[in-house]
């Protein structure tokens, strides 16, 4: 029987579990990464739900992407078979990747979510993975 569980992808390394929230605040334009996320490696498939509840400043973009760790070198890199996140230019909810017709099965042991805020000066967004796994 398949079971589903949630993983907050926008969880910073230094953020304690007690302060974790569904919404993540970005206070300045730039590139950010989450903590290392190992919670996808028992998944049969994963879908990401994401959106932005506020964007501040001159219009720009908020771009999410996934990084996968090479288990020997420890380096994080984008692989070509990863889900594609839509570029966000205005507040939006209910986005999901991959699409309904595609199941994405993680190949790696460890991931990070990266978010790049361009031109905008602040943003509030969310990104949660719904992990589907069987057996156990």
């Amino acid at each position, binding site marked *: 029987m398949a079971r589903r569980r949630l993983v907050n992808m926008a969880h910073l390394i*230094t953020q*304690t579990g*007690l302060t974790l929230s569904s919404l993540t605040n970005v206070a300045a334009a730039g590139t950010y990464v989450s903590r290392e*996320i190992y919670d996808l490696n028992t998944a049969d498939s994963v879908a990401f739900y994401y959106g932005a509840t506020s964007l501040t400043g001159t219009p720009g973009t908020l771009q999410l992407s996934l990084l996968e760790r090479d288990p*020997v070198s420890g380096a994080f890199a984008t692989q070509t078979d990863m889900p594609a996140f839509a570029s966000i230019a205005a507040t939006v909810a209910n986005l999901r990747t991959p699409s309904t017709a595609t199941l994405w099965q993680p190949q790696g042991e460890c991931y990070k979510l990266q978010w790049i805020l361009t031109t905008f000066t602040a943003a509030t967004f969310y990104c949660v993975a719904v992990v589907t796994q069987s057996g156990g």
Partner: protein
Amino acid sequence: MSVDPMGMPALYAPPRNGPSRTTTGRVIWEESYLNNMVGTFNDGIGSAHLDWDVIAPGGGPSVRLDNQGVTATPTFTGGNVQLVLGGSPQTITTSSNSTLVGTSAATGSPTGALNYAGLATGYITVTSTSATVGNWATTDGNSYVMSYTSYVVSGGANAWVVTFSGVNILPLPQTYGLPTPTLTTANVGTGLLNINNPNPNPTGAPQPTVSVVHKRRINDQFSGVFGAETWFRPTSVSSATSGASVFAHRLYNRNGVNYYGATAYPQFAQGFLRGGATWSNDNVLLWVSTGTGTSGAGCQFIPVAFSVGAFGQHSWDPVGTGAGTSSQWDKAGCWNYSKIIVNMTGTLGAGYWVSYQWNDIVYPLAPLPMYYCPDTGAKIMHFSTEHGFQGTNRQFVNVAHMVGTNE
């Protein structure tokens, strides 16, 4: 309808069906992780995640406590001071009532750290951590814990002298040479004396901003005697390093006014030259918490025993981030069993330690009070395993089969 009879464990205790080294306790809850799910939660930084590469004793995955590089260097200190061995070489026994001299080139006076919760008494640990004879504070290369009955501080800035009186070897279990251990000081002027608390130490209460705090919570307001069990292995390269590795096992509760916590802290890298031939520094000195203060500070750690075993060997660290050079691929590792038992009975939860078990040995501790401090946080009993580290070499450890018991 059946009612869970907390006061009648003998009648209702089910047989233990999980891996355990204990002989007591009715299981309240257990985390086996066999269903691929993690019911425990990390309140701290970094991550506590399912690890299918490091399989627990008895099967199934373990949970990796990984700080992900967040160091606890500014935090995990307190109640300790390090001095340089002074005076002349001398022999100390369990009843010699010796006078021992230590010096400090620090600007500030060591008096604050010596005033161990207002007591004139305390502990002096000589930890032999290097195979180099010139670094040993004892001629035999063995680590010892001594006790003292009083001290006098003299001198001034950058030239402090501390004179301890009534110094004896504390005959802890597995001290080398028991029942009549004798140490002779060596390398005066370079050998190190660690006074009172170990440094680093996990303090008397969880520190979630600098460590992984991996826990299960059960509502109970100090109704009886409880146990907390876990299996534990140092996993990464450098995860059992002298003066850098901090793994803590805690059982604690709050009543809306105070926090009461029992913390067990295995301090790694204690050196011994056993059999007169083979020196190694992967033994452990076990400490437990008592005293009072604020937010974990003011904790007095009490030395319980040396433990002989292989604690700093056989790492699993494919990236090799700990050493920064080569990776380690030992999935089996070296597992340890830890069990805290405390009596929490009392309207204000003025509880005390009953015993601490580390692997094959149970150490009776009653009636040693648990550490306590003012705390209006969640009024619930917590069973936690925690990990922090100091320095720059990333460390992680694994835990498995955490169990809460009613004793």
